[in-house]
């Protein structure tokens, strides 16, 4: 079946699901697919639609090109040049987990309200992915290829052209294809305000006018844009990396190839694992938005809440790496981390943790007296996490608990007191993180068992772990829904909850107890979307209805 055929079948199934959902909901919010398609058919005849479409395509296209031109060579450099990597990759490590989207206000001030800020925002986010994937791809290249080439020619330039670049390209392309999804998501976000052009604006505008079929015209347009870019990259990769498309029937060869791929993916995931914590940021911001309804939020609040988040996250991350250095060294998957590999000294790591903790305490002090009093216990809770996996398989829940302190803290920072409703948000985050962490821990099942570390997969096996995770995510979904009731949210939020629910289902479809290959790439993207959708859902809901 060709590409077109596969798209037809997938599209048909999607339409069927859509139709059923539309019938079940019978809300204006979700028009029937035929109505939306009719509207789309009408829209493509108008120059207006194409004006918005091309504005969006132009922004994403420029951003992708910019990201590639900067990040791919940089990734090759870091991957190939050890000296450069030693000095530069700590910056990448430190900045990678920061959700770059929160820098949008800064970009808008720096580059203005025009296309530049939007293009740079998207390029920054995708660029990081390309950089990291390319760097790891080049580093994973067997040195014997380099030796083999050097026996033919001593010239570094020729080595780059004949060995390093061809080996790096597939990794760069993979990042680019995955980046398409992220890029379109960010595009929607940056186009949803301060512009009158682009599909993001088109969707928001239709939404504001309650023109739901029009809204779906924009959504279909964005999907098409994504498919277009994705397939273009596929085509480019097939042309440039023709060798990748060939396989033999020989099983040993193929197994060797997937082994390389799995390695690459694991290396990729190593850096982002600690960004678990950062999944909390959209939840904290959601708490801020909810608190804003009763207690107006000032820029002062926002700034110091962000500072507290960064401080607490960095302190917890650094502390965890110091405490776990011993285990990281023994686990082949984590042996290359900064501390075990010797790229970062223990002393430097301790200083990093102290400075981050001080930043957190300072931020708490700037917020309120109550925050300052609560801050040290919070740090203790965060640090204790690093030890939980040594004595209890419930460490996943504890991680959820530690991260769930973020929205709670943000709420207390804004309102100055504790309220029960915010606990719903915290519990949603707790169960969602715990469920995700259990799946993630499946990768280390064998290692944890040997090292005597506790985790649900290590104790009861991956199959039980998957069931527990599913149960937790079901609970998380219930809490997401309860937010709707407790905080009197509207239909927009409800739509966000449905989207989150489907993403959770997707997450559980992507990995199987004995097939974790998709875990890193697919997961990270699905997961980072959940928090963002929650935040955007709550924000727009409040903007629209209140």
């Amino acid at each position, binding site marked *: 079946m060709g590409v077109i055929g596969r798209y037809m079948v997938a599209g048909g199934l999607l339409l069927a699901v859509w139709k059923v959902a539309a019938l079940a909901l019978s809300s204006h919010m979700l028009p029937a697919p035929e109505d939306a398609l009719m509207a789309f058919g009408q829209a493509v005849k108008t120059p207006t639609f194409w004006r918005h479409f091309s504005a969006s395509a132009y922004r994403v296209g420029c951003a992708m090109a910019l990201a590639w031109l900067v990040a791919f060579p940089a990734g090759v450099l870091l991957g190939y040049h050890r000296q450069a990597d030693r000095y530069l990759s700590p910056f990448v490590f430190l900045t990678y987990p920061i959700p770059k989207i929160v820098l949008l206000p800064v970009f808008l001030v720096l580059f203005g309200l025009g296309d530049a800020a939007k293009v740079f925002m998207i390029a920054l986010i995708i660029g990081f992915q390309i950089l990291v994937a390319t760097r790891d791809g080049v580093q994973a290249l*067997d040195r*014997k*290829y380099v*030796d*083999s*080439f*050097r*026996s*033919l*020619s001593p*010239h570094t330039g*020729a080595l780059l052209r*004949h*060995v390093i670049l*061809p*080996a790096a390209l597939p990794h760069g392309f993979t990042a680019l294809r995955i980046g398409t999804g992220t890029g379109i998501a960010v595009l929607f976000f940056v186009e949803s305000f301060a512009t009158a052009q682009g599909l993001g604006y088109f969707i928001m505008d239709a939404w504001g006018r309650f023109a739901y079929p029009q809204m779906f015209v924009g959504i279909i347009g964005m999907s098409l844009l994504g498919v277009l870019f994705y397939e273009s990259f596929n085509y480019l990769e097939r042309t440039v*990396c*023709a*060798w990748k498309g*060939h*396989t*033999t029937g*020989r099983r040993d*060869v193929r197994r060797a*190839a997937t082994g390389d791929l799995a390695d690459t993916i694991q290396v990729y995931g190593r850096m982002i694992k600690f960004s678990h914590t950062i999944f909390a940021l959209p939840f904290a911001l959601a708490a801020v938005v909810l608190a804003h309804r009763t207690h107006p939020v000032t820029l002062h609040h926002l700034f110091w809440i962000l500072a507290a988040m960064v401080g607490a996250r960095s302190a917890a991350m650094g502390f965890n790496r110091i405490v776990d250095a011993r285990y990281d060294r023994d686990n082949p998957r984590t042996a290359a981390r900064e501390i075990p590999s010797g790229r970062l000294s223990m002393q430097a790591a301790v200083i990093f943790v102290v400075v981050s903790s001080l930043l957190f305490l300072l931020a708490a002090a700037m917020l309120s007296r109550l925050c300052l009093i609560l801050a040290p216990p919070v740090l203790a809770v965060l640090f204790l996490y690093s030890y939980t996996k040594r004595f209890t398989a419930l460490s996943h829940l504890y991680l959820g608990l530690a991260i769930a302190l973020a929205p709670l803290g943000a709420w207390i920072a804004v309102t100055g007191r504790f309220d029960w409703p915010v606990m719903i948000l915290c519990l949603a985050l707790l169960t969602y993180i715990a469920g995700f962490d259990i799946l993630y821990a499946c990768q280390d099942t064998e290692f944890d068992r040997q090292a005597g570390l506790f985790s649900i997969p290590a104790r009861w096996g991956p199959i039980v772990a998957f069931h527990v995770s599913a149960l937790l995510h079901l609970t998380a979904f219930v809490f997401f829904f309860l937010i709707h009731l407790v905080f009197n949210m509207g239909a927009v939020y409800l739509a966000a909850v449905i989207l989150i629910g489907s993403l959770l289902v997707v997450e559980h479809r992507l990995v199987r107890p004995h097939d974790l290959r998709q875990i890193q790439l697919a997961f990270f993207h699905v997961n980072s979307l959940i928090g963002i959708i929650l935040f955007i859902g709550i924000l727009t809901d409040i903007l629209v209805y209140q």
Partner: protein
Amino acid sequence: MIAVHQLSKTFNPEDGAVLDGLSFELPAGETLAVIGPSGCGKTTLLYILAGLSAASAGKVNIGGRRGRGHTAFILQDFGLFPWKTAAQNIALALELKGANAASRHKVAETLLTELGLEGLGQRYPVQLSGGQKQRVAIARALATEPDLILMDEPFSSLDALTREHLQNTMVDMWQRKGLGYIIVTHSVEEAVFLGRRIAVLTDRPTRVKALIDNPSFGTADLRFKNCFFDRIREVRRVMEG
């Protein structure tokens, strides 16, 4: 003429020397099989001979037609670049020298035919069998017109029959072109079949324990002859004694 004089190599002073005052000589066009306990520094020796790694002390002199002799390196795995077709892999050395497409094509086709790989030039390594891949690697080495071929356990991952075919190919090449090679191996049979001389190395720090002459090298049906087995026993005795 290859002369290795008092060659030493130390990677890390704490671990001691890998090679320690290793010396041997080999007339031009001669074949040498190097055998020794695993981890004894055979690969290190080849890397130094190939110019990929510098010796800590001692001298290596590889005589060539034009000053320092040119070596070609054949590795066990990873030798071929997966992103280049067989023909592109073979012609790579020529491409690096700036040869035009037509002459590259001609050389690649000639070598493919010579090594029994007709029609496989456009395949990528992943589409070739293990034996075919090593044939391509040999062709690529020949394309560089080397004075000496260096091989690091080139056939050890192949099945017995394919391995013997390729060993025959090497002897055949030597008989037709007079092209010398040094092969590192851990198989006594392979050493006796492929080396006119056999260097038995000691454990670390590595020296040459014995340089055994193997005059029956290259005779027809050597594998079935008594002298072949006698030599194998002799090498084994030297290794164990």
